[in-house]
């Protein structure tokens, strides 16, 4: 572990933001742009389509859960703006992180580090799509949704990518808020305001993010360490990360049943959230009790963490499907 990362652990700790910037190793050549090698698929990949699909899904559920009516064309426009804004934020993230992306196995084939897209063009692309998505949301849907959309882009790019990611192991905890905005935006697109239920949906995605990313970082921590990103396992070790995953999963399970406990949803959602929460807690428990060596490194290739990462995706999908199903049952049965 580099000195910079050890310092980040000491000064930042688990709760602090005061860690030092952990610069990527010296002597790595910047990616070389090869003109004329970009395909349209590269520009599509620059939008992080897998992340966008999750954002669109949670945004659609937020829109569906909101009371009131919205014209289908405006609903489609709102979802499109959410998707384009998320993609634009992803492009700006890839532009800023092109140096560390080139160092990590998982990200080195992305369009910018692979040299297929010029960084300047990626920056212009991200800025143009960000501005366009907020403008269209404001003009076609409403000002409240456009404002939250603009805040979500700024949060992801400025707070998470530029400020937190390279400075503190808490990057995912605070930065996770960026991915939690879509249900709020979907709700605001219909109602023009924000209420308790969309804030609870925000809370679910917020508390889901740390166990999801820390499970991934447990088995990808060498990659993060090589790039100088102070993810929790790199700075505080695998053992502490396992404890944190379990703690946040408990919090998530509690927050997930709140919509039912506070009377905003029916019993169907309450039952689904309880069962899904119990399943996710079981996965996190297996990560906590994983057979490890003295350094906290798994003896079986982090099988439990890999399973938890996959389960976390199913968990979030299940929670939001249950919310929508509960509303359908309440409305039509």
């Amino acid at each position, binding site marked *: 572990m580099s000195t910079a990362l050890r310092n980040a652990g000491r000064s930042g700790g688990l709760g602090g933001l005061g860690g030092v910037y952990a610069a990527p190793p010296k002597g790595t050549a910047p990616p070389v742009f090869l003109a*004329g*090698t*970009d*395909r*349209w698929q590269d520009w599509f990949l620059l939008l992080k389509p897998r992340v966008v699909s999750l954002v669109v899904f949670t945004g659609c559920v937020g829109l569906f859960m909101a009371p009131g009516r919205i*014209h289908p064309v*405006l609903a489609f426009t709102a979802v499109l703006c959410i998707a384009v804004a998320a993609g634009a934020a992803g492009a700006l993230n890839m532009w800023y992180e092109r140096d560390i992306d080139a160092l990590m196995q998982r990200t080195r084939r992305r369009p910018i580090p692979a040299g297929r897209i010029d960084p300047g063009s990626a920056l212009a692309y991200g800025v143009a799509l960000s501005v366009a998505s907020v403008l269209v949301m404001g003009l076609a849907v409403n000002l409240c949704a456009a404002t939250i959309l603009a805040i979500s882009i700024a949060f992801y790019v400025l707070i998470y990518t530029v400020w937190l990611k390279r400075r503190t192991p808490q990057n995912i905890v605070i930065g996770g808020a960026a991915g939690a905005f879509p249900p709020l935006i979907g709700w605001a697109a219909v109602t023009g305001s924000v209420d308790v239920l969309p804030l609870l949906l925000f809370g679910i995605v917020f508390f889901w993010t740390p166990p999801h990313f820390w499970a991934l970082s447990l088995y990808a921590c060498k990659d993060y360490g090589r790039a100088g990103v102070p993810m929790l396992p790199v700075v505080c070790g695998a053992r502490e990360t396992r404890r944190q995953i379990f703690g946040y999963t408990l919090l998530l399970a509690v927050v997930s049943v709140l919509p039912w406990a506070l009377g905003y949803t029916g019993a169907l959602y309450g039952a689904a959230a309880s069962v899904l929460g119990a399943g996710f807690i079981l996965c996190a428990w297996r990560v906590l009790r994983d057979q490890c060596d003295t350094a906290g490194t798994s003896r079986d290739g982090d099988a439990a963490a890999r399973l938890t990462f996959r389960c976390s995706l199913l968990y979030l999908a299940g929670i939001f499907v249950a919310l929508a199903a509960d509303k359908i049952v309440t409305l039509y049965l």
Partner: protein
Amino acid sequence: MSEFPPRPTPIEAADMIRRQRGRNVALLLVLVALAVLFFAITLVKLGHMG
């Protein structure tokens, strides 16, 4: 003295043209879709006003 940047071979040039055509078609489709969307939004907004 060698040229910089190096002149592409005929195969590379054909590949670049094919990629460029793919990008242009994708951009055309996006622009047409946007025009249709803005037209639809305008109709909806005018409908609400009427």
